């Protein structure tokens, strides 16, 4: 296709979980690089399959945009070094400099370059800058040096522009680009020569490679649900797994296999997790959501009888392990497991999980709460959670039920991990929500108390997430879960830490409140779409010890409403102007009786005397203030008149500040 660029980096298998992000990153980066080279184009798209990352650009101009500009450099008296740097970065010499108004200038003219002469640099740039999460380099025999970093070794490159192969030597990969690639590794592993993108996509398809990730994914999704439906079954939705298996195959095939009946006594969560984590199998359920004795798997090649035996056998081995863990675990009581928690470190500075449990007890109230706290962490030392950490809480809840705990306690055990941050679901039970709050607050107080805080993007102990969860537990549940002041919980935990001989910093309470306020600001501004700065101002000025989170939130939403009312500008204007005039004036008497003879001031005095708190009234008075300021010499040379004027305006300020948060008035 005319003015079309096709690039393919043919690599060893790209990790499946990275495909989705890589598509977006590659597209964005390639477009950015083209702009940096002043290359005009219509569209950029990127594609990924296990062994290739491809870029298609349409309408790519044959010559880059010419540039003509005058660039200002350092001052004439600047150092030689600065000047040389300026010249070097623009590829110019001293002779090119022009001097004007004490500065050096360069006349930059770039006539526009053939795009084909730039493609090598563009590809090198793209390879260097592509943000893979964890990349590697490999040794290039021909270059006697290490390659650029990439996710896995790159083995060949396609570069085609305007339907013609562009041969470029990419030094950082030790490879020449060309117009050939390979088909499916097992079904059509042969060299393919391509002419343009359309030809490329078609030939790949003929050779059993689907280039379009989304197309492949939706095919898998449809096919899985159809095949399950034909057996009266439903595929348990699992977007993460669907993305992953889509990234594992060049061309999808499917198999529905059997789960041996003897494993069906295992809890659904265990079966499902074992299948997903270890085997990447989908769980199938009956229409009533009960698990069915079948699994579905997606493969890269047509499924043979041998493979089926293998898929079934490996699952038997996996589930035998799970069965073994389940039996071992249910032979032990949760109390016995809980006793081992003194050997499990919560954090080296904050003691063991047992100690955490003791601290949580200190802020709990009812016998049910104590029971849940005593058991809720026990499953951390169970065999099953050792194998599948993601089952923490869920196993605890199942084992609690096996040993005959009341349903409310069982449910609260799994509930107490919820919510995991801003987007997770909230606990279903009041009991679980309370314990979740205790747990997270203990974490926050402890870590901040020993000086461990998130910095930038680093938050290894997920303190931000814990804090957002605390906020949601307090704000978003239908019932208030706090039986005491928020600060009481902080104080009591600090005491509990100190009773255990764990010294927290003397500023821990303020640190926790400050951290909480920061998170609350972010949370409210996002959830309620309120200006960040407004939230920040209001929340920072709240006295936390006298105000519940709910009140603070109400305060912010009220402020948001006020600032969005157009006439509030009048109040703000009058307020600012007045306070500018009178400064820190303090009146000799509280009396606002105006005894002067100025009509404007008289009217104002009248308004302030018959004052009511309504918004309209304050707008009205503010208009009077503005009129007065326009028409009267407030700062009168006559000290007595001035004093009278100032006293009246001070009264106005007091009234406004009484009704509105001064933060809003000063914004």
């Amino acid at each position: 296709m005319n003015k079309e660029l096709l690039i393919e980096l043919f690599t060893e298998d790209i990790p499946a979980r990275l495909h989705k992000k890589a598509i977006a990153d590659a597209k964005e980066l390639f477009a950015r690089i083209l702009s940096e080279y002043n290359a005009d184009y219509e569209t950029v798209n990127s594609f990924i399959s296990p062994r290739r990352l491809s870029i298609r650009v349409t309408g790519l101009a044959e010559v880059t945009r010419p540039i003509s500009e005058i660039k200002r450099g350092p001052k004439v008296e600047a150092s030689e070094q600065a000047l040389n740097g300026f010249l070097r970065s623009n590829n110019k010499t001293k002779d090119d400099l022009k001097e004007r108004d004490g500065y050096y200038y360069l006349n930059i003219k770039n006539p526009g370059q053939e795009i084909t002469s730039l493609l090598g640099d563009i590809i090198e740039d793209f390879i260097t800058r592509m943000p893979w999460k964890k990349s590697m380099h490999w040794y290039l025999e021909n270059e006697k040096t290490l390659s650029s970093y990439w996710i896995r070794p790159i083995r060949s490159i396609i570069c085609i522009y305007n339907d013609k192969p562009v041969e470029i030597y990419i030094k950082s990969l030790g490879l020449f680009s060309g117009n050939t690639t390979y088909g499916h590794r097992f079904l059509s592993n042969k060299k393919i020569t391509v002419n343009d993108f359309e030809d490329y996509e078609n030939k790949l398809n003929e050779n059993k490679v689907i280039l379009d990730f989304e197309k492949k994914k939706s095919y898998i999704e449809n096919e899985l649900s159809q095949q399950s439906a034909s057996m009266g079954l439903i595929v348990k939705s699992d977007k993460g797994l669907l993305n992953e298996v889509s990234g594992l195959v060049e061309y999808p095939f499917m198999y529905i296999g059997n789960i041996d009946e003897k494993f069906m006594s295992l809890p659904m969560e265990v079966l499902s997790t074992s299948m997903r984590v270890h085997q990447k199998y989908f769980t199938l359920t009956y229409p009533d959501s009960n698990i069915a004795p079948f699994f579905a798997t997606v493969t890269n090649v047509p499924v043979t009888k041998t493979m089926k035996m293998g898929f079934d056998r490996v699952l038997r081995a996996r589930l035998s392990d799970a069965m073994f863990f389940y039996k071992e675990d249910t032979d032990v009581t949760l109390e016995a497991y809980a006793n081992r928690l003194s050997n499990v470190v919560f954090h080296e500075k904050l003691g063991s999980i047992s100690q955490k449990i003791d601290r949580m007890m200190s802020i709990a109230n009812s016998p049910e709460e104590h029971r849940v706290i005593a058991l809720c962490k026990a499953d951390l030392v169970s065999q099953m959670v050792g194998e599948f950490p993601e089952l923490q809480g869920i196993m605890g809840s199942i084992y609690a039920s096996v040993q005959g705990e009341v349903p409310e306690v069982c449910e609260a055990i799994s509930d107490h991990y919820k919510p995991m941050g801003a987007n997770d679901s909230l606990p279903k039970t009041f009991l679980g929500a309370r314990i979740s709050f205790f747990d997270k607050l203990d974490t926050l107080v402890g870590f901040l108390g020993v000086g461990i805080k998130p910095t930038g993007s680093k938050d290894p102990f997920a303190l931000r997430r814990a804090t957002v969860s605390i906020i949601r537990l307090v704000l978003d549940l239908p019932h208030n879960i706090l039986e005491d002041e928020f600060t009481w919980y902080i104080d009591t935990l600090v005491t509990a830490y100190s009773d255990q001989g764990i010294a927290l910093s003397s500023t821990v309470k303020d640190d926790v409140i400050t951290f909480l306020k920061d998170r609350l600001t972010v949370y409210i501004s996002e959830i309620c779409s309120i200006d960040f700065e407004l939230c920040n101002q209001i929340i920072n000025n709240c006295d936390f010890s006298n105000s519940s989170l709910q009140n603070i939130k109400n305060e912010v939403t009220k402020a948001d409403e006020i600032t969005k009312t157009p006439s509030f500008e009048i109040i703000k204007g009058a307020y600012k102007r007045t306070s500018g005039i009178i400064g820190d004036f303090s009146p000799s008497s509280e009396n606002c009786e105006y005894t002067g003879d100025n009509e404007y001031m008289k009217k104002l005095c009248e308004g302030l005397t018959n004052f009511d708190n309504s918004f309209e009234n304050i707008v009205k008075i503010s208009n009077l203030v503005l009129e007065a300021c326009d028409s009267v010499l407030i700062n009168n040379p006559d000290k007595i008149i001035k004093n009278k004027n100032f006293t009246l305006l001070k009264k106005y300020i007091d009234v406004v500040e009484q009704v509105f948060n001064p933060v809003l008035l000063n914004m």
Partner: protein
Amino acid sequence: MFSDNPGSAENNSRIDVEARQVKSFQDIMFGLQKYWSNYGCVIMQPYDTEVGAGTSHYVTTLKALGDDYWDVAFVQPCRRPKDGRYAENPNRTQYYFQYQVILKPAPVNPQELYLKSLEAIGFDLSEHEIRFVEDDWENPSLGAAGVGWEIWCDGMEITQYTYFQQVGGIQCSVPPVEITYGLERIATFIQNVETHFDINWNGRTDERKLTYGDVLKRFEREFSCYNFDVASVNILLSHFNDYEKECNKLLAHNLVMPAYEQCVKANHCFNLLDARGVISVTERAGYIARVRALAKACCSAWLKSLQEERNDNE
């Protein structure tokens, strides 16, 4: 376009697995030895001290550093005391066999070389599904890390494949590729048996047939007891300290390979102590750090000696 589905795949079986000639456990080892020997690898022998993986063999760890060519392959019996199950779990044992390949630098086609090696030992690739599933390998005790995959055959991991990036905390100047075959798992596929203990070891099908169980079941049972229940904790603790001390002393004498061997022995002592259940979570990290410090010191000394050698030659 997508021709296969569960219904029709039933007819797809091209080879009757049962009819296949029995390929013995040792045939598989010979096959790999032959294949990699033909490629030009040095066929090494196992490290004659206890190691948890072929990676710990000095021909892997030390030789991964430095710029020289190094292609080597060997069988390595591995000991992982904690994995013992008293011979009661059919597929989990504290002693098992790896086939280890190191190619340094990694050539341009290691994936193809690997797939061909499977064919060489009797895999019909059209009968099995082989996939490369991301798995970035790390060995904290050796301060080693790399990126790569676990290689799955019909859903079961049979090989670990890694491009080393770092060993002993030192970046590899010429990154090798490490291919580690799990020989028992591969044999269960090739022989189509359900458990490791059923693997035909000597290839005979008459009454003189010897299985993996015949050869190793008692070993497995007795060592599980030793690892978990009987090993003397105090002796192991003092061994650990002695090996650590000796390693440092040997390093002071610039005897890197003997020093490294002490480090490997200390690591095995730690693994035994861990299996005995006498190491708490906090202590655990401490022991790993001590072994890693030894490994790092050995690797640094090794690299330094290589540089000195080169300077002498110049």
